[in-house]
Protein backbone atom coordinates (compact mmCIF):
# COMPACT_ATOMS: atom_id res chain seq x y z
CA UNK A 1 0.00 0.00 0.00
CA UNK A 2 1.47 3.35 -1.01
CA UNK A 3 -0.05 4.98 2.04
CA UNK A 4 1.87 2.66 4.37
CA UNK A 5 5.09 3.27 2.47
CA UNK A 6 4.79 7.00 2.97
CA UNK A 7 4.37 6.55 6.67
CA UNK A 8 7.30 4.18 6.83
CA UNK A 9 9.49 6.63 4.89
CA UNK A 10 8.40 9.43 7.12
CA UNK A 11 9.26 7.48 10.25
CA UNK A 12 12.63 6.46 8.84
CA UNK A 13 13.45 10.08 8.06
CA UNK A 14 12.13 11.16 11.42
CA UNK A 15 14.58 8.83 13.15
CA UNK A 16 17.49 9.62 10.81
CA UNK A 17 17.24 13.38 11.12
CA UNK A 18 18.38 13.82 14.75
CA UNK A 19 21.11 11.19 14.20
CA UNK A 20 22.45 13.03 11.17
CA UNK A 21 22.30 16.31 13.05
CA UNK A 22 24.29 14.80 15.89
CA UNK A 23 26.94 13.33 13.59
CA UNK A 24 27.43 16.33 11.33
CA UNK A 25 26.37 19.14 13.57
CA UNK A 26 29.65 19.15 15.50
CA UNK A 27 32.14 18.54 12.70
CA UNK A 28 30.66 20.67 10.00
CA UNK A 29 28.74 23.41 11.69
CA UNK A 30 27.10 25.65 9.14
CA UNK A 31 27.97 23.36 6.23
CA UNK A 32 24.70 21.85 5.17
CA UNK A 33 26.14 20.10 2.15
CA UNK A 34 28.30 17.83 4.27
CA UNK A 35 25.19 16.13 5.56
CA UNK A 36 24.26 14.97 2.09
CA UNK A 37 24.90 11.34 1.46
CA UNK A 38 24.01 8.88 -1.21
CA UNK A 39 23.13 9.53 -4.85
CA UNK A 40 22.74 13.02 -6.22
CA UNK A 41 19.26 14.41 -5.79
CA UNK A 42 18.62 17.11 -8.37
CA UNK A 43 15.50 18.44 -6.71
CA UNK A 44 17.45 19.35 -3.56
CA UNK A 45 19.50 21.98 -5.38
CA UNK A 46 18.90 25.26 -7.15
CA UNK A 47 22.16 26.47 -8.60
CA UNK A 48 23.01 30.09 -9.27
CA UNK A 49 26.07 32.22 -9.84
CA UNK A 50 27.00 35.58 -8.44
CA UNK A 51 29.30 38.01 -10.21
CA UNK A 52 30.94 40.76 -8.21
CA UNK A 53 31.58 43.19 -11.03
CA UNK A 54 33.77 45.52 -8.98
CA UNK A 55 36.31 42.73 -8.50
CA UNK A 56 36.82 41.63 -12.10
CA UNK A 57 40.30 42.40 -13.42
CA UNK A 58 39.61 41.22 -16.95
CA UNK A 59 42.34 38.57 -17.02
CA UNK A 60 40.25 36.19 -19.09
CA UNK A 61 41.29 33.08 -17.17
CA UNK A 62 37.62 32.12 -16.74
CA UNK A 63 36.87 32.21 -20.45
CA UNK A 64 40.01 30.19 -21.15
CA UNK A 65 39.28 27.62 -18.45
CA UNK A 66 35.74 27.26 -19.79
CA UNK A 67 37.08 26.39 -23.22
CA UNK A 68 39.52 23.88 -21.73
CA UNK A 69 36.97 22.21 -19.54
CA UNK A 70 34.08 22.01 -21.98
CA UNK A 71 35.92 21.37 -25.22
CA UNK A 72 34.71 24.60 -26.78
CA UNK A 73 36.23 25.52 -30.13
CA UNK A 74 39.27 27.72 -29.68
CA UNK A 75 38.29 30.13 -32.46
CA UNK A 76 37.31 33.52 -31.04
CA UNK A 77 33.66 33.28 -32.10
CA UNK A 78 32.51 30.50 -29.79
CA UNK A 79 32.13 31.35 -26.14
CA UNK A 80 30.19 29.88 -23.29
CA UNK A 81 31.46 32.73 -21.15
CA UNK A 82 33.31 35.89 -22.08
CA UNK A 83 34.32 39.23 -20.61
CA UNK A 84 33.20 42.62 -21.83
CA UNK A 85 34.95 45.88 -21.11
CA UNK A 86 32.70 48.87 -20.68
CA UNK A 87 34.18 52.32 -21.12
CA UNK A 88 31.84 55.19 -20.41
CA UNK A 89 33.15 58.40 -21.93
CA UNK A 90 32.76 61.86 -20.51
CA UNK A 91 30.18 62.71 -23.18
CA UNK A 92 28.07 59.74 -22.09
CA UNK A 93 28.91 57.45 -25.00
CA UNK A 94 29.42 53.83 -23.99
CA UNK A 95 32.06 51.68 -25.68
CA UNK A 96 31.95 47.93 -25.20
CA UNK A 97 34.74 45.70 -26.44
CA UNK A 98 35.67 42.09 -25.92
CA UNK A 99 38.68 41.19 -28.07
CA UNK A 100 38.76 37.41 -28.31
CA UNK A 101 36.27 37.17 -25.47
CA UNK A 102 38.94 38.64 -23.20
CA UNK A 103 41.04 35.48 -23.37
CA UNK A 104 44.16 37.19 -24.63
CA UNK A 105 43.76 40.09 -22.19
CA UNK A 106 42.68 43.58 -23.09
CA UNK A 107 44.70 46.28 -24.86
CA UNK A 108 45.07 49.62 -23.08
CA UNK A 109 42.21 52.05 -23.57
CA UNK A 110 42.51 54.11 -26.74
CA UNK A 111 44.68 57.21 -26.37
CA UNK A 112 42.84 60.49 -26.24
CA UNK A 113 39.41 59.09 -25.40
CA UNK A 114 38.14 60.85 -22.31
CA UNK A 115 36.92 57.89 -20.30
CA UNK A 116 34.93 58.68 -17.19
CA UNK A 117 34.79 55.15 -15.87
CA UNK A 118 35.66 51.73 -17.15
CA UNK A 119 35.18 48.22 -15.83
CA UNK A 120 34.88 44.58 -16.85
CA UNK A 121 31.69 42.54 -16.90
CA UNK A 122 31.86 38.75 -17.25
CA UNK A 123 28.94 37.37 -19.21
CA UNK A 124 27.53 33.90 -19.57
CA UNK A 125 24.24 32.07 -19.91
CA UNK A 126 21.96 33.51 -17.24
CA UNK A 127 20.25 30.16 -16.58
CA UNK A 128 16.91 31.93 -16.51
CA UNK A 129 14.11 30.66 -14.35
CA UNK A 130 11.77 31.49 -17.23
CA UNK A 131 14.01 30.63 -20.16
CA UNK A 132 12.91 31.98 -23.53
CA UNK A 133 15.18 29.48 -25.27
CA UNK A 134 13.39 26.50 -23.77
CA UNK A 135 10.04 27.98 -24.72
CA UNK A 136 10.91 28.20 -28.41
CA UNK A 137 12.64 24.84 -28.84
CA UNK A 138 10.41 22.84 -31.18
CA UNK A 139 11.70 19.39 -30.18
CA UNK A 140 12.42 19.65 -26.47
CA UNK A 141 16.19 19.52 -26.97
CA UNK A 142 16.85 22.34 -24.56
CA UNK A 143 15.33 22.10 -21.16
CA UNK A 144 15.46 23.20 -17.56
CA UNK A 145 16.64 20.56 -15.17
CA UNK A 146 15.21 20.12 -11.71
CA UNK A 147 18.27 21.85 -10.23
CA UNK A 148 17.62 24.91 -12.35
CA UNK A 149 20.29 24.55 -15.01
CA UNK A 150 19.37 24.99 -18.67
CA UNK A 151 20.95 22.25 -20.76
CA UNK A 152 21.04 21.34 -24.44
CA UNK A 153 20.53 17.74 -25.51
CA UNK A 154 23.13 17.57 -28.24
CA UNK A 155 21.86 14.35 -29.78
CA UNK A 156 18.29 15.64 -29.94
CA UNK A 157 18.88 19.21 -31.15
CA UNK A 158 17.97 19.77 -34.78
CA UNK A 159 20.02 22.97 -35.10
CA UNK A 160 17.12 25.22 -36.05
CA UNK A 161 18.65 28.22 -34.20
CA UNK A 162 15.39 29.42 -32.69
CA UNK A 163 17.01 29.39 -29.27
CA UNK A 164 19.99 31.42 -30.49
CA UNK A 165 17.54 34.05 -31.66
CA UNK A 166 15.43 33.88 -28.54
CA UNK A 167 18.22 34.34 -25.99
CA UNK A 168 18.25 37.98 -24.85
CA UNK A 169 21.81 37.61 -23.55
CA UNK A 170 23.47 36.24 -26.68
CA UNK A 171 24.68 33.28 -24.69
CA UNK A 172 24.14 30.62 -27.32
CA UNK A 173 26.02 29.67 -30.45
CA UNK A 174 25.92 26.91 -33.02
CA UNK A 175 28.81 24.49 -32.75
CA UNK A 176 30.02 24.02 -36.34
CA UNK A 177 31.22 20.48 -35.59
CA UNK A 178 27.82 19.14 -34.59
CA UNK A 179 25.61 21.92 -35.99
CA UNK A 180 23.74 21.97 -32.72
CA UNK A 181 23.18 24.75 -30.21
CA UNK A 182 25.65 25.01 -27.36
CA UNK A 183 25.90 27.16 -24.25
CA UNK A 184 27.10 27.37 -20.68
CA UNK A 185 25.96 24.43 -18.56
CA UNK A 186 27.30 25.78 -15.23
CA UNK A 187 29.76 22.87 -15.80
CA UNK A 188 26.91 20.50 -14.97
CA UNK A 189 29.27 17.50 -14.96
CA UNK A 190 31.33 19.23 -12.25
CA UNK A 191 28.68 20.73 -10.00
CA UNK A 192 26.76 17.48 -9.52
CA UNK A 193 30.02 15.99 -8.24
CA UNK A 194 30.37 18.81 -5.72
CA UNK A 195 33.07 20.66 -7.67
CA UNK A 196 32.88 24.27 -8.75
CA UNK A 197 32.44 25.31 -12.38
CA UNK A 198 35.79 25.73 -14.12
CA UNK A 199 35.44 29.51 -14.43
CA UNK A 200 34.72 29.87 -10.72
CA UNK A 201 37.61 27.55 -9.87
CA UNK A 202 40.23 29.62 -11.68
CA UNK A 203 38.89 33.13 -11.00
CA UNK A 204 41.76 34.81 -9.16
CA UNK A 205 39.73 37.57 -7.49
CA UNK A 206 36.55 35.69 -6.49
CA UNK A 207 34.58 37.77 -8.93
CA UNK A 208 32.53 34.68 -9.63
CA UNK A 209 30.71 33.11 -6.73
CA UNK A 210 28.95 29.82 -7.22
CA UNK A 211 26.28 28.55 -4.92
CA UNK A 212 22.71 27.61 -4.41
CA UNK A 213 19.67 29.78 -3.93
CA UNK A 214 17.78 29.26 -0.71
CA UNK A 215 20.70 27.60 1.08
CA UNK A 216 22.15 29.65 3.89
CA UNK A 217 25.48 27.84 3.89
CA UNK A 218 26.07 28.77 0.26
CA UNK A 219 28.66 31.50 -0.41
CA UNK A 220 26.08 33.06 -2.68
CA UNK A 221 23.89 33.75 0.32
CA UNK A 222 26.63 35.84 1.89
CA UNK A 223 27.20 37.76 -1.31
CA UNK A 224 23.49 38.49 -1.66
CA UNK A 225 23.38 39.77 1.88
CA UNK A 226 26.39 42.02 1.54
CA UNK A 227 25.82 43.75 -1.74
CA UNK A 228 23.06 45.15 -3.88
CA UNK A 229 22.05 42.60 -6.46
CA UNK A 230 21.01 43.29 -10.04
CA UNK A 231 20.29 41.05 -12.99
CA UNK A 232 20.77 41.69 -16.69
CA UNK A 233 17.71 42.88 -18.63
CA UNK A 234 15.19 42.52 -15.78
CA UNK A 235 12.47 43.92 -18.03
CA UNK A 236 12.65 40.76 -20.15
CA UNK A 237 11.07 38.94 -17.19
CA UNK A 238 13.41 35.99 -17.63
CA UNK A 239 14.32 35.85 -13.93
CA UNK A 240 18.02 35.09 -14.39
CA UNK A 241 19.97 33.00 -11.91
CA UNK A 242 23.20 34.86 -12.63
CA UNK A 243 23.23 37.68 -10.12
CA UNK A 244 25.42 40.72 -10.57
CA UNK A 245 26.46 42.85 -7.66
CA UNK A 246 27.27 46.56 -7.94
CA UNK A 247 26.41 46.53 -11.60
CA UNK A 248 26.67 49.81 -13.45
CA UNK A 249 23.43 51.11 -14.92
CA UNK A 250 24.98 51.23 -18.38
CA UNK A 251 25.49 47.47 -18.57
CA UNK A 252 23.08 45.74 -20.88
Amino acid sequence: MPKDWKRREFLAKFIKLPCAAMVFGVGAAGDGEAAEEGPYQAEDHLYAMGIQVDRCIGCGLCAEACKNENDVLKEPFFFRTWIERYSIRVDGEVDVDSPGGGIGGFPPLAEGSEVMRSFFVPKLCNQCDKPPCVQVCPVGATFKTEDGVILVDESYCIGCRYCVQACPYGARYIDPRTLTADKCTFCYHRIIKGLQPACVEVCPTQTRVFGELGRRSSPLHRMKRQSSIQVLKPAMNTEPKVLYSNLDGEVR
Partner: protein
Amino acid sequence: MKPGEKWIGRCSRAVRSISTNLVFIQEPLFRLILVFSTNSLGMRMRIWKIPDQVIRLAILIVIALAVLIVVRLQFIPASFGEIGHYRADALKEEAALTLHYAGMQACVMCHDDIGMIKAASYHRNLACESCHGPSLEHVDDPGEFSPVVVTGRTLCVRCHGYLASRPTGFPQIIEAIHNPMAPCTECHDPHDPTPPEVPEDCSACHAEIARTKAVSHHWSLSCETCHEAAPEHRQSPRAFLPKKPTEREFCGQCHGQGSQRSASAPRVDLSEHGGRYLCWQCHYPHHPEGR
Protein backbone atom coordinates in the same frame (compact mmCIF):
# COMPACT_ATOMS: atom_id res chain seq x y z
CA MET B 1 -33.04 43.65 -48.48
CA LYS B 2 -31.33 44.76 -45.29
CA PRO B 3 -28.05 43.08 -44.35
CA GLY B 4 -29.68 41.70 -41.19
CA GLU B 5 -32.43 40.01 -43.15
CA LYS B 6 -29.82 38.53 -45.52
CA TRP B 7 -28.09 36.85 -42.56
CA ILE B 8 -31.39 35.51 -41.19
CA GLY B 9 -32.08 33.99 -44.60
CA ARG B 10 -28.67 32.33 -44.71
CA CYS B 11 -29.01 30.93 -41.21
CA SER B 12 -32.46 29.46 -41.85
CA ARG B 13 -31.15 27.81 -45.03
CA ALA B 14 -28.21 26.29 -43.09
CA VAL B 15 -30.52 24.94 -40.37
CA ARG B 16 -32.77 23.39 -43.02
CA SER B 17 -29.86 21.65 -44.75
CA ILE B 18 -28.50 20.29 -41.46
CA SER B 19 -31.90 18.92 -40.49
CA THR B 20 -32.31 17.18 -43.86
CA ASN B 21 -28.83 15.65 -43.42
CA LEU B 22 -29.67 14.54 -39.92
CA VAL B 23 -32.44 12.40 -41.34
CA PHE B 24 -29.84 10.19 -42.99
CA ILE B 25 -28.04 9.71 -39.73
CA GLN B 26 -31.21 9.26 -37.73
CA GLU B 27 -32.80 6.80 -40.10
CA PRO B 28 -30.31 3.89 -39.54
CA LEU B 29 -30.52 4.54 -35.82
CA PHE B 30 -34.32 4.18 -35.91
CA ARG B 31 -33.90 1.01 -37.92
CA LEU B 32 -31.39 -0.39 -35.41
CA ILE B 33 -33.81 0.31 -32.56
CA LEU B 34 -36.57 -1.31 -34.60
CA VAL B 35 -34.41 -4.46 -35.08
CA PHE B 36 -33.79 -4.84 -31.39
CA SER B 37 -37.37 -4.11 -30.42
CA THR B 38 -38.78 -6.54 -32.96
CA ASN B 39 -36.24 -9.20 -31.88
CA SER B 40 -37.35 -8.91 -28.33
CA LEU B 41 -40.87 -9.48 -29.52
CA GLY B 42 -39.68 -12.77 -31.05
CA MET B 43 -40.02 -11.67 -34.68
CA ARG B 44 -37.28 -12.81 -37.15
CA MET B 45 -35.98 -9.82 -39.10
CA ARG B 46 -32.91 -9.10 -41.24
CA ILE B 47 -30.15 -7.59 -38.98
CA TRP B 48 -29.35 -4.10 -40.01
CA LYS B 49 -25.92 -3.84 -41.81
CA ILE B 50 -23.24 -1.14 -41.14
CA PRO B 51 -22.72 0.88 -44.34
CA ASP B 52 -19.51 0.17 -46.31
CA GLN B 53 -18.24 3.73 -46.20
CA VAL B 54 -18.32 3.69 -42.41
CA ILE B 55 -16.35 0.43 -42.30
CA ARG B 56 -13.74 1.84 -44.69
CA LEU B 57 -13.41 4.95 -42.60
CA ALA B 58 -13.04 2.88 -39.42
CA ILE B 59 -10.29 0.78 -41.02
CA LEU B 60 -8.47 3.94 -42.06
CA ILE B 61 -8.68 5.34 -38.55
CA VAL B 62 -7.39 2.10 -37.01
CA ILE B 63 -4.42 2.02 -39.43
CA ALA B 64 -3.62 5.67 -38.73
CA LEU B 65 -3.68 5.02 -34.99
CA ALA B 66 -1.42 1.97 -35.36
CA VAL B 67 1.05 3.93 -37.47
CA LEU B 68 1.01 6.73 -34.92
CA ILE B 69 1.75 4.35 -32.06
CA VAL B 70 4.55 2.62 -33.98
CA VAL B 71 6.08 5.94 -35.01
CA ARG B 72 5.94 7.22 -31.44
CA LEU B 73 7.60 4.10 -30.08
CA GLN B 74 10.20 4.15 -32.82
CA PHE B 75 11.13 7.82 -32.97
CA ILE B 76 10.60 9.20 -29.48
CA PRO B 77 13.45 8.19 -27.17
CA ALA B 78 12.55 5.86 -24.35
CA SER B 79 13.46 8.30 -21.63
CA PHE B 80 11.62 11.27 -23.16
CA GLY B 81 9.17 12.74 -20.71
CA GLU B 82 10.39 10.81 -17.69
CA ILE B 83 11.17 14.04 -15.82
CA GLY B 84 9.93 16.78 -18.11
CA HIS B 85 9.50 17.57 -21.77
CA TYR B 86 12.98 16.28 -22.59
CA ARG B 87 15.12 13.16 -22.77
CA ALA B 88 16.06 12.15 -19.23
CA ASP B 89 19.13 10.30 -20.54
CA ALA B 90 20.56 13.65 -21.69
CA LEU B 91 21.25 14.40 -18.03
CA LYS B 92 23.30 11.23 -17.68
CA GLU B 93 25.24 12.07 -20.84
CA GLU B 94 25.93 15.56 -19.55
CA ALA B 95 27.07 14.19 -16.19
CA ALA B 96 29.43 11.73 -17.88
CA LEU B 97 31.47 14.43 -19.64
CA THR B 98 35.20 14.39 -18.99
CA LEU B 99 36.56 16.67 -16.30
CA HIS B 100 39.79 18.56 -16.87
CA TYR B 101 40.16 20.72 -13.77
CA ALA B 102 40.78 18.84 -10.56
CA GLY B 103 40.13 21.66 -8.11
CA MET B 104 42.45 23.11 -5.51
CA GLN B 105 41.50 20.58 -2.84
CA ALA B 106 42.86 17.74 -4.96
CA CYS B 107 46.17 19.60 -5.44
CA VAL B 108 46.83 20.30 -1.77
CA MET B 109 46.20 16.65 -0.87
CA CYS B 110 49.75 15.95 -2.08
CA HIS B 111 51.31 19.43 -2.28
CA ASP B 112 50.32 20.40 1.23
CA ASP B 113 53.63 22.24 1.80
CA ILE B 114 52.93 24.66 -1.05
CA GLY B 115 49.30 24.80 0.01
CA MET B 116 50.32 25.97 3.47
CA ILE B 117 52.60 28.68 2.12
CA LYS B 118 50.00 29.85 -0.35
CA ALA B 119 47.21 29.83 2.22
CA ALA B 120 49.01 32.55 4.18
CA SER B 121 49.94 34.65 1.17
CA TYR B 122 48.23 37.21 -1.04
CA HIS B 123 47.55 34.40 -3.49
CA ARG B 124 45.54 32.39 -0.95
CA ASN B 125 42.37 32.56 -3.03
CA LEU B 126 44.11 31.85 -6.31
CA ALA B 127 43.52 28.28 -7.44
CA CYS B 128 46.54 26.18 -8.43
CA GLU B 129 45.10 25.53 -11.86
CA SER B 130 44.72 29.22 -12.63
CA CYS B 131 48.45 29.28 -13.39
CA HIS B 132 49.34 25.60 -13.83
CA GLY B 133 46.50 24.82 -16.21
CA PRO B 134 43.97 21.98 -16.14
CA SER B 135 45.62 19.18 -14.21
CA LEU B 136 43.18 16.37 -13.51
CA GLU B 137 45.37 14.09 -15.63
CA HIS B 138 48.22 14.86 -13.27
CA VAL B 139 46.06 13.93 -10.28
CA ASP B 140 45.18 10.63 -11.92
CA ASP B 141 48.72 9.86 -13.07
CA PRO B 142 51.38 12.13 -11.59
CA GLY B 143 54.24 10.35 -13.36
CA GLU B 144 52.85 10.59 -16.85
CA PHE B 145 51.46 14.10 -16.99
CA SER B 146 52.97 17.26 -15.58
CA PRO B 147 51.14 20.56 -15.20
CA VAL B 148 52.44 23.70 -16.84
CA VAL B 149 55.30 25.41 -15.04
CA VAL B 150 55.01 29.11 -15.67
CA THR B 151 58.11 30.98 -16.74
CA GLY B 152 58.56 34.43 -18.20
CA ARG B 153 56.27 37.38 -17.75
CA THR B 154 53.19 36.91 -19.94
CA LEU B 155 50.93 35.09 -17.49
CA CYS B 156 51.62 37.32 -14.48
CA VAL B 157 51.14 40.46 -16.55
CA ARG B 158 47.75 39.18 -17.67
CA CYS B 159 46.48 39.98 -14.19
CA HIS B 160 49.06 42.43 -12.88
CA GLY B 161 49.77 44.55 -15.95
CA TYR B 162 48.31 48.04 -15.67
CA LEU B 163 44.89 48.55 -17.21
CA ALA B 164 42.79 51.60 -16.44
CA SER B 165 39.66 49.42 -16.28
CA ARG B 166 40.95 47.30 -13.42
CA PRO B 167 39.59 47.97 -9.95
CA THR B 168 41.46 50.48 -7.85
CA GLY B 169 43.83 48.90 -5.37
CA PHE B 170 44.56 45.79 -7.38
CA PRO B 171 48.37 45.49 -7.57
CA GLN B 172 49.47 46.40 -11.08
CA ILE B 173 52.77 47.17 -12.78
CA ILE B 174 53.71 48.86 -16.00
CA GLU B 175 55.42 46.03 -17.75
CA ALA B 176 57.76 48.14 -19.85
CA ILE B 177 59.46 49.75 -16.88
CA HIS B 178 59.10 47.14 -14.12
CA ASN B 179 62.38 45.17 -14.51
CA PRO B 180 61.52 44.47 -18.14
CA MET B 181 64.18 41.83 -18.74
CA ALA B 182 63.62 39.76 -15.61
CA PRO B 183 61.10 36.93 -15.39
CA CYS B 184 58.70 37.62 -12.54
CA THR B 185 59.85 34.57 -10.56
CA GLU B 186 63.34 36.12 -10.34
CA CYS B 187 62.14 38.39 -7.52
CA HIS B 188 58.63 37.13 -6.61
CA ASP B 189 57.68 33.69 -5.35
CA PRO B 190 54.32 33.07 -7.02
CA HIS B 191 53.17 30.98 -4.05
CA ASP B 192 53.96 33.85 -1.70
CA PRO B 193 54.03 36.96 -3.85
CA THR B 194 54.70 39.54 -1.15
CA PRO B 195 56.66 42.27 -2.94
CA PRO B 196 60.33 41.83 -2.04
CA GLU B 197 62.27 44.57 -0.28
CA VAL B 198 63.94 46.37 -3.12
CA PRO B 199 67.68 46.51 -2.37
CA GLU B 200 68.45 50.18 -2.50
CA ASP B 201 72.18 49.71 -1.98
CA CYS B 202 73.55 51.28 -5.14
CA SER B 203 70.31 52.40 -6.81
CA ALA B 204 69.61 54.76 -3.92
CA CYS B 205 72.15 57.16 -5.43
CA HIS B 206 72.83 55.64 -8.87
CA ALA B 207 69.20 55.20 -9.80
CA GLU B 208 69.66 56.25 -13.42
CA ILE B 209 72.35 53.62 -13.95
CA ALA B 210 70.21 51.04 -12.16
CA ARG B 211 67.24 51.79 -14.43
CA THR B 212 69.40 51.65 -17.55
CA LYS B 213 70.94 48.37 -16.50
CA ALA B 214 67.52 46.92 -15.72
CA VAL B 215 66.49 47.05 -19.38
CA SER B 216 69.84 45.77 -20.69
CA HIS B 217 71.18 42.28 -21.12
CA HIS B 218 73.30 42.89 -18.04
CA TRP B 219 70.16 43.15 -15.86
CA SER B 220 71.04 40.07 -13.87
CA LEU B 221 74.53 41.23 -12.84
CA SER B 222 74.80 42.91 -9.50
CA CYS B 223 76.86 46.09 -9.25
CA GLU B 224 79.45 44.23 -7.16
CA THR B 225 80.20 41.88 -10.02
CA CYS B 226 82.22 44.61 -11.73
CA HIS B 227 82.62 47.30 -9.07
CA GLU B 228 84.43 46.47 -5.89
CA ALA B 229 83.29 49.10 -3.39
CA ALA B 230 84.58 49.58 0.13
CA PRO B 231 81.79 49.77 2.74
CA GLU B 232 82.96 53.31 3.55
CA HIS B 233 81.88 54.39 0.06
CA ARG B 234 78.38 54.83 1.49
CA GLN B 235 79.49 57.30 4.12
CA SER B 236 82.02 59.25 2.07
CA PRO B 237 81.56 58.37 -1.57
CA ARG B 238 84.32 60.53 -3.01
CA ALA B 239 86.99 59.47 -0.52
CA PHE B 240 86.43 55.77 -1.20
CA LEU B 241 85.75 55.39 -4.91
CA PRO B 242 84.59 51.99 -6.18
CA LYS B 243 86.85 50.20 -8.58
CA LYS B 244 86.22 49.67 -12.26
CA PRO B 245 87.52 46.81 -14.41
CA THR B 246 90.85 47.84 -15.86
CA GLU B 247 91.63 44.81 -17.99
CA ARG B 248 90.11 43.34 -21.10
CA GLU B 249 90.37 39.91 -19.52
CA PHE B 250 87.75 40.90 -16.91
CA CYS B 251 85.05 41.11 -19.59
CA GLY B 252 86.66 38.11 -21.25
CA GLN B 253 85.62 35.98 -18.27
CA CYS B 254 82.19 35.87 -19.85
CA HIS B 255 82.77 37.12 -23.40
CA GLY B 256 86.10 35.45 -24.17
CA GLN B 257 86.15 32.49 -26.46
CA GLY B 258 87.07 29.92 -23.85
CA SER B 259 84.53 31.15 -21.31
CA GLN B 260 82.45 28.56 -19.49
CA ARG B 261 79.98 31.09 -18.07
CA SER B 262 76.61 32.28 -19.37
CA ALA B 263 75.97 30.49 -22.65
CA SER B 264 73.93 33.38 -24.01
CA ALA B 265 76.77 35.94 -23.75
CA PRO B 266 78.26 36.79 -27.16
CA ARG B 267 81.86 35.57 -27.56
CA VAL B 268 84.82 37.45 -29.11
CA ASP B 269 88.45 36.56 -29.69
CA LEU B 270 90.19 38.94 -27.29
CA SER B 271 93.47 38.80 -29.20
CA GLU B 272 91.87 40.13 -32.40
CA HIS B 273 88.83 42.17 -31.19
CA GLY B 274 89.31 45.82 -30.22
CA GLY B 275 93.08 46.16 -30.43
CA ARG B 276 94.56 48.25 -27.65
CA TYR B 277 91.27 49.64 -26.28
CA LEU B 278 89.56 48.56 -23.10
CA CYS B 279 86.08 47.05 -23.54
CA TRP B 280 84.15 49.85 -21.87
CA GLN B 281 85.82 52.47 -24.09
CA CYS B 282 83.56 51.26 -26.91
CA HIS B 283 80.80 49.25 -25.11
CA TYR B 284 78.79 50.87 -22.35
CA PRO B 285 78.65 48.09 -19.72
CA HIS B 286 75.37 49.27 -18.17
CA HIS B 287 73.65 48.98 -21.53
CA PRO B 288 75.96 46.99 -23.78
CA GLU B 289 73.53 46.61 -26.69
CA GLY B 290 72.99 50.40 -26.87
CA ARG B 291 74.64 52.37 -29.65
